[in-house]
Each structure stands twice: as C-alpha cells, then as structure tokens.
C-alpha cells in the first residue's frame, strides 16, 4: 500500500501550490518533497536549489524541525513545510 502522509504548507507556499494541505506519496522526506515539487513546480524555486533543500526552509515532522531528508515517513506522519521565515 502506498504511504500517503499529510503535508501542510505555510506562508507563500500556499499560494504557489494553490492549497494549504495535500497528501503526497513517499516513504522518506526526500521522496515526499520531490513528489510535491513535481506536482507543484512553482514551489521549486522556494524549496530547492540544485535538487537540495534550500537553506532556511523549515520542515517539521510531527512538530519536530528536521534537516534529515532521509528520515522515513509513515502514513500517520504530519509534515509541515515553511519557506524561510523570521519575526519576533
């Protein structure tokens, strides 16, 4: 069975993808992200640079920020993707 974790998008990613939330197949963060960009090419310039995650893009898995793109994902995982943001 295909693993379909939920991906939540924030800030300008929503406008570029045309949605706030999407289910994307993939067994690792890298696979999920790759598929996401394939489906919404407008996200690529924000998220990727030479095929790698751009600096300061924030990805959380179940509320925990991670930079490990090889991390496995399961059906129940909630992945959130934020473009570079700051504030205070």
């Amino acid at each position, binding site marked *: 069975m295909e693993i379909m974790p939920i991906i*939540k998008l*924030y*800030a*300008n990613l*929503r406008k570029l993808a045309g949605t706030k939330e999407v289910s994307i197949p993939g067994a690792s963060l890298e696979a999920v992200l790759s598929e996401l960009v394939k489906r919404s090419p407008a996200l690529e310039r*924000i998220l990727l640079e030479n095929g790698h995650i*751009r*600096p*300061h893009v*924030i990805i*959380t898995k*179940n*509320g*925990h*920020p991670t*930079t490990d793109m090889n991390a496995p994902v399961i059906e129940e995982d909630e992945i*959130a993707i*934020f*473009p*570079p*943001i*700051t*504030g*205070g």
Partner: protein
Amino acid sequence: MNGWNGKILEIDLATQTYKTYPLDMEMAYLFIGGRGLGARLLWDLVGPEVDPLAPENVLIFTNGPLTATGYQTSNRFSVTTKSPLTGTVLDANSGGFWGMQFKKTGYDVLIVRGKAQNPVWIEIKDSVVAFHDASDLWGMRVFALTEKLGQNNNKRNVLCIGPAGENLSRIAAIMNDRERAMARGGPGAVMGSKNLKAIVVEGSGRPEIDDKERFKFLLYETRKLLAASPLTSQALPEFGTVVLMNIMNNIGALATRNHQQTQFEGAEAISGEELTEKYLVKNAACWACPIGCTRISKTEKVEGEGPEFETTWAFGAQCGVDDLPAIIEVNSICNDLGLDTISAGSTIACAMELSEKGYLDSDLRFGRADLLARCVEDMAYRRDLGADMADGSLRMATKFGHPELSMSAKGMEFPAYDPRGMQGQGLLYATSNRGGCHMRGNMVGLEVLGLPKLIDRFQVQGKSSFVILNQNSNAAIDSLVVCKFTNMGVADEYFARVLSAVTGIQYATSEMIKVGERVWNLERLYNIREGFTRKDDTLPARLLTEAPVDGPSKGWVVQLEPMLKEYYRSRGWDENGVPKKQKLEELGLTNLM
C-alpha cells in the same frame, strides 16, 4: 567628530532649564551608543536609593553613531531608565523616524531629570530647546496628540505618552511617530511621573562620516545582501512578523491560555497568512529601511500599524482568543493609550486564569474577545480591576494571592515562545537583564528556524554558549543602534565594518561583540547593585515543573538549573552569578566595582 555628534543635552524639568556638554568619547568608544551608552550613563545617575517613579530617576534617550547616516535601518534609538515594572536597568528601543530626527538636532543623548510642577512638553529645534505648557494636552490620547503637535515624518517628529503613562501604569509605553512603541518595562510611567507629555524634535544637521567612499560601498553591499536574503526580501515584507504564529504552534511552543498549554487550536485564525489575506492594506517602513515589515491593517473599526506577532499572540493564544479583527482593534487602542501590548495581553490572560480558578471575582474568561478593549481602557485609566492590571501581572497576581500565575521573569511578562519547547529560550528569559524578554537574544532562530543553523531545541548541555553569543551580539546591535532584522541578511562583520567607516575608529567584529559583552556585564552589575541575586534568575514554577500533556513538547519542562550553572561558568561569573574580577578587568569595567 565622525558618527557621533559628541554632545549631550541635559534637561531639568523642575527648573525648566537645560545645558549641553561634550560626550565622553572614551565612554562612547567602550559602549558605542543606544542601549550600551544609556546603561553606562544610568550607572552614574541613578543608584539603588532611587524609586523608579521618583523625580530622581532619569530618562536617557540615546541614538548611536550610525543613526541618521542613511545606513539601512539606522533609524532606531533607545530610552534607558530604571524600570518601574521590574526595578532593573531598562532600555526599550524603537524605530520609525524620531531617532533619526533627534540625531539631526545635533545631540547623541538627551537626559531628562526631575519633575515639572505642571504638565509640560518639550520642543527641540536644532540647538534651541523650548518648554511649553501641556495642561491642555494632558489626558489626550496618542494619535490625536501626535497630529496636534505637528508630526511630519521626515521633518518634525513627536514622541509622547498617552493616558496609561499619565496614570503611571507600570506597563505604559513611550510612543513615537504615532504607532511606534518603546514599550517594555514601563518607560511611559517614568515619563508620566515627570509630568512630561511629549518631546518634539526638528533637526537640520547630518552626522559626519569618516570614510564616505567606503561607507557608500558598504551601503551598496548591504542593499544587495538584504535583497538576496529570502528573510529580508520576502518573508518579512510579505507576511510581517506574525508569520511565526503557525510555526510556533506547529512545534508546540506557542504559549496558550497563560501558559497552560503549548498549542492553540485557533492559531491559524490569527496567523500571518490570515492577516495578509484578509486585513492587510499595505506595507510600511521605518526611515532608511528597505525591508518594510510593518503591516498597515484594517478592520471595520480601525486602520493602522500592526499588529506584530507578539501582540497578536498576547491578545490571541495567550488569552484563548481567535478573533483577529478584535486583536487588530485592541492593538490600535493600546497604541492610542500608550500601553505595552505584550504585558497588557499577558496580564489579561493572568486575570482570566485567576477568574476561572475562582481567585478573582470577575467576568474574564479565556476566549472572551469582547472584553479585551474594555480591559485595556480600564488599565490605562486605572478603573476597577484595571487599577491592578495597570501594574502588570505579577503585582496583580500577588494581590490576589497567586503570584505563581504571573507568567513573567523579574516581573516582566514573557513573549510568545513557551520555553518548555525551547530550552535555550528558558535560559534566556531567566537571565535577561530586563526580565522576561525575547529581544535580548532570541533563540527562535537557532532552536526553531535554523538561523543560521538548526540546533536541538530540547538539548540542555552546551546551550548556554549559544544564549551568551546571542545576548552579546544583540547588546552590540542595540548599541549601534540598528534593527535586529538587518542581521537576518547582514552578518555582524558588516556592522563592524560600517561602524569603522562611519567613525574612523577601527572596530574588529570581535571588538564589537566585546562591546556587547561589556554592556551585558554592566547591566548585570547594575541589577546586582539594586539587590538582584541568583534567586531572581528563575522562571515561574509552571515552566519548571508542569510539563505539557500533549503536543510536540509533551513531557518537557525547562531544565534551568544545569543550564544556569553552565551559563554562569561560561560568562566568567561566580556560582552566585556575580561577574568575577578577572572578567571585569577583561571588559574594562573594574572602575565600577
């Protein structure tokens, strides 16, 4: 003289006289300007015998050598005083236009002493200082007063207090340029205690720059760097600071309902995305700022600046309110009354918890958006429960028998970040020299946003070195003075290069950061002289013993004790948090021992 004007203006309100004298340039070299210079002057002027609301307390307005040079974000300025909220050293800084205009009058520092017999306002036009009767202005709100006194962004700028400051609310702000606030710690109450309603500045000068060609090149480079950074060219202009709402909620570090929870189910409704989509009219910017993070938002009732992230959180998640128009409106009312929105919102949240638990007889309950406007009005005019809320959450909660429900450190209410989900932020709050504050070295960059790199937010060991680095860097930036957001695109190294080009004094990056360390230690010494000890470097019991029961921060409390021990050691302080002689010698502070 390059960068600095080299002059201090000192006003005595009791006699309505003034004098000018040279800035001690050795002091300026060691403390630069802004927060650092203000703290150094306060050390000499206000000792432990002075009550913060007594005429003997002073207001020290400082700009820095970069102010008004045209360097990106060189608009900021500081006010330094003894805080009526915390009793600690206090500086609050603000952007807008007033700081630039004050620098153009030819002064680096304005010291206001004493108390006027009747309300006055001061007008500074270059070297001419005039005292005006403010009896007919006393009672006016900020927006109307600012207009009446002739606010004109690039020519004439108004700084004033509203009713909150007049009524000596210990969470009263000093407002400038209508909606910019020197908010934290109650400087507005100090101004009110002096019967000083407003200070208006008009200047025609410009600071001299030592190496104009080098400065021009650095301006060009900085512009390029800010344009290249997605943070300063996209994130801040597009969504403002409120964009942090969803990420903080996502990771379970958004303090909710007076820190009873760490996630708010209504976060999306009060997020930066929602604000931008439904209420944003346009962006605005402070003088010489290419970033433009200010939001001009509009509801059916108000149109104006803000709200910022901390404000939206304080009246939102912290009060259990998901009504964004109500938050925009209460933000505008606070600006008009001259109130610190973080402390005001968090004090209401504290009153809501006291009421829900039966410790206080009031109709306040979490989620009651309809009561927010009334609460802040009552605070500013000290009506009913507002009389207690006007002095902040700690004094109010203590009066009702439950000081542990005040979410504050040293009496200053925390901002949005719940430190149970960010251990370093907990250490930062506990050691902050002005109380529970994120502007003293926010750890959100390192612990959440990966700026400049992501570190483990739950890790305890080794965390103190990151906190110290941030604290020192922030103290240096606050002393230049430039906006901390510039630092998102421009490394500390650039600031040192600009400082050198402007002043002609060669500051290495390490020397500039050392200024920050010097300022931090001086502020620590000031607080020690005021009677603060190791026991004040702490957090409310809730954050130390009550772990969130769900969400990504489930099971975590702040592991303060081991971090604090490590912090003191790394700072070169003894086990009681007192700077050692060797450290003070290293920083050139032995003359203050």
